[in-house]
């Protein structure tokens, strides 16, 4: 429910800040059951022509909303700032329950503003909260400008069609902010299931015997696959070599103790959603596990070294791209110690 709105043309950050304070005071005066959310500031920098699409994506994130969103739409040739501030409440209609209020500030600005985006945004972000910056349409200069303010940079390394360049960019961003990468989050269910497979103590020695990892991915999500190989390498102490293209596929090897692991990435063209389509892990002893997308979860197929085969569905709903973005926002408040080592290993595979 929209509870308060303010808008102005050719305005200033100080005016927007003052308007936000006034809106909150007015809304508070109307009833104590309204309480502003205080979780995370999100600064999204988008192309003006794609603003509506981004707004839709943010509305579909499910349970994980930023508490204050500052949506900066970049318009060619614009020299002034127009702004609109909106407070919305999750009103249940029950006056005895707290209605949580979220704030959104829409700012229309020009490309020249991006180099000093920090000066525009600084008065509008709530201090003491994590500040997350997301620039889904490039605008690297905005991320550079936000170096001093951003705690977390949300990005999708799969957006860049050149994986090596994407990894390089991620590494440079990581020097000044924690990175949440949507391409990495798309691999979470796969990492969870692989970890679960090898979790029973009797299966753990098989981690040392892995001989082959084959990943199937949507053609535009090769980096999700490379990151997953980076995860295997960093967690299991492999030394990966360079991935070499062969037709549509990428091939490589990793040194694992005294042995070697064959790595491969294969695009699958009929996958609907971005991300991974399947993975197969084999051991020197002839044990093999495959996981593939299927209705209601991942279809698991296992062949033991004596040739016995079994299949089952690992239950789990698809999060969809909205859910992945929501997860990205939630991850701004967490820290995954395994991403950076996986990125470094992925970088070695893509040199």
């Amino acid at each position: 429910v929209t509870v308060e709105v303010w808008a102005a043309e050719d305005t200033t950050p100080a005016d927007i800040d003052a308007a936000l304070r006034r809106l909150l005071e007015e809304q508070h005066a109307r009833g104590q059951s309204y309480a502003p959310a205080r979780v995370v500031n999100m600064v999204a920098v988008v192309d003006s022509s794609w603003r509506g699409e981004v707004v839709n994506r943010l509305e579909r994130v499910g349970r994980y909303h930023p508490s204050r969103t500052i949506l900066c739409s970049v318009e060619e040739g614009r020299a002034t700032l127009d702004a609109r501030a909106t407070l919305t409440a999750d009103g249940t209609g029950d006056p005895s329950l707290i209605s949580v209020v979220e704030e959104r500030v829409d700012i229309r600005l020009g490309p020249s503003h991006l180099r000093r985006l920090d000066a525009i945004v600084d008065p509008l972000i709530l201090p003491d909260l994590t500040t997350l910056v997301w620039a889904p349409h490039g605008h690297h200069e905005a991320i550079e400008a936000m170096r001093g303010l951003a705690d977390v940079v949300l990005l999708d390394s799969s957006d860049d069609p050149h994986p090596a360049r994407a990894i390089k960019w991620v590494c440079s961003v990581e020097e000044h902010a924690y990175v949440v990468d949507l391409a990495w989050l798309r691999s979470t269910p796969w990492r969870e299931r692989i970890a679960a497979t090898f979790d029973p103590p009797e299966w753990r020695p098989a981690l040392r015997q892995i001989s082959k990892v084959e990943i199937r991915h949507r053609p535009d999500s090769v980096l999700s696959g490379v990151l997953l190989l980076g995860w295997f390498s960093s967690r299991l102490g492999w030394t990966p070599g360079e991935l070499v293209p062969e037709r549509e596929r990428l091939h490589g090897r990793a040194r694992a103790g005294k042995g070697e692991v064959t790595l491969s990435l294969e695009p699958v063209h009929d996958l609907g959603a971005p991300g991974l389509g399947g993975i197969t892990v084999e051991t020197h002893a002839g044990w093999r596990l495959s996981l593939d997308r299927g209705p209601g979860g991942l279809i698991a197929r296992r062949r033991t070294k004596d040739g016995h085969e079994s299949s089952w569905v690992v239950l789990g709903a698809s999060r969809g791209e909205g859910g992945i973005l929501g997860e990205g926002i939630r991850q701004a408040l967490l820290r995954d110690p395994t991403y950076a080592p996986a990125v470094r290993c992925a970088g070695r595979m893509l040199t």
Partner: protein
Amino acid sequence: LATVQENPLTEGLERAPVHPTTLIIFGGTGDLAQRKLLPAVYNLAHEGALPERFNLIAVARTDQPDEQYREFARDAIEKHSRRPPDDAVLSSLLERMRYVGSSFDDPKAYEGIAKIAGELDDQAGLPFNRVFYLATAPGFFETIAQSLGERGLDTREGAEVRLVVEKPFGRDLASAQQLNRALLSVFEERQIFRIDHYLGKETVQNMLVLRFGNGIFEPLWNRSYIDNVQITAAEDIGIGTRAEYYDRSGALRDIVQNHLLQLLTILSMEPPVSFSADEVRNEKVKVLHGIKPPRPEDVPERVVRAQYAAGVAEGKEVPGYLDEQGVAPGSTTETYVALRLGIDNWRWAGVPIYLRAGKRLSRRVTEIAVTLKPVPHLALEQSGSLGVQPNQLILNVQPNEGVSLSLVAKIPGARMRVRPVNMEFAYGTSFMSQSPEAYERLILDTMRGDATLFARDDEVEAAWAIVDPILEAWENTPGPLPQYPAGSPGPPEADKILLDAAEWRPL
């Protein structure tokens, strides 16, 4: 690189792997299964939190084929799940459900379970862990446990077998001891998970974090600074369709013996050396042992019981307890109880701890209020303002989950006048997600084998030892009970157990 003893792949993952499990629900068509357990299992499946291989076997008296039970489960999940079910996930989950129709004292029930669970293990080529969930009337707990033992279903080579027991765990100390003996004659204590769903609530678990993760509270958390503690579980609803159960139970057994004493132990326990199940439960048991049960002759001045009379609740006129359908004529079952306890240890000696629970009260709220002692000298002007109130830390368990601290602040103006203000932390405003249902967490913990949020045998018995003398005194005191109008804050008689200038927090 971690050693193979550790599984280096789990580092950084939010969800720890869970061994393949078959969950067997006794009472699979009952109210609890329908409203809580099946929706919780679905939500775990939706989030990908169930073990990678999972089966569910429901056991209930009605004779019906698997397909019919799956339809029942689908309806229950669609009606009670906290999120709209995903068709594909729900269908896949339902495919893993099997049904055994038999009474719980019939050997056929256990033969059926053994057969199906064995087949499922064989199909998978590995022994699944088995979790037997007793969601039945308490009268069946012993029978089921004994029958599982007699048929060798209490252990499984290469896998874990666990037993989950719903409340009520006994109806007095003697019956709880008897039940413990019966369960422990078949299962080991580490296999038994006694559910108190309050412990699955995020806000209750957060009490441990609040106390032991923040340095600000520990110096104040003792008799030198705390004046009194009030723990309230107020409901605005009546007994609904639970008259048969409730009239034999009452507020003391239904809420105080388990939920409120659990809240009390978490609030007042010493810091554990770790958060392992036994370290936490050791500290909780110490608290319960520190509470001196009231002697029967002290009960009238330390405990108040009452029943709701006709009144207005939930916006409509409602009947009194004695006029509710299914309640025995002249029943002396209490729908409200308030009591004063104390903990005899160095930290808490002399601090009154007030517990109250009731139905058909003016508001639904579960909270803990820790009232600090007033400042020793006040130079501030109090006339013309609300004045200085002692600081209160309120831990809201439901419905507005969060924590608030009342402080005094200067009223803007030329004079030094003050009034109380609140510093608030609300879950809804500080976290972006809704809390999962308590049962989701607890079911997952039973599959993981983590007993931290479950009551141990000695814990349950220590809690009954506190409540038993009250029940005994009441048995010897005929009714009728004091009445309070439905929709009111409770009986005025509750004030008489308060010491000094203490007041009940308004509901």
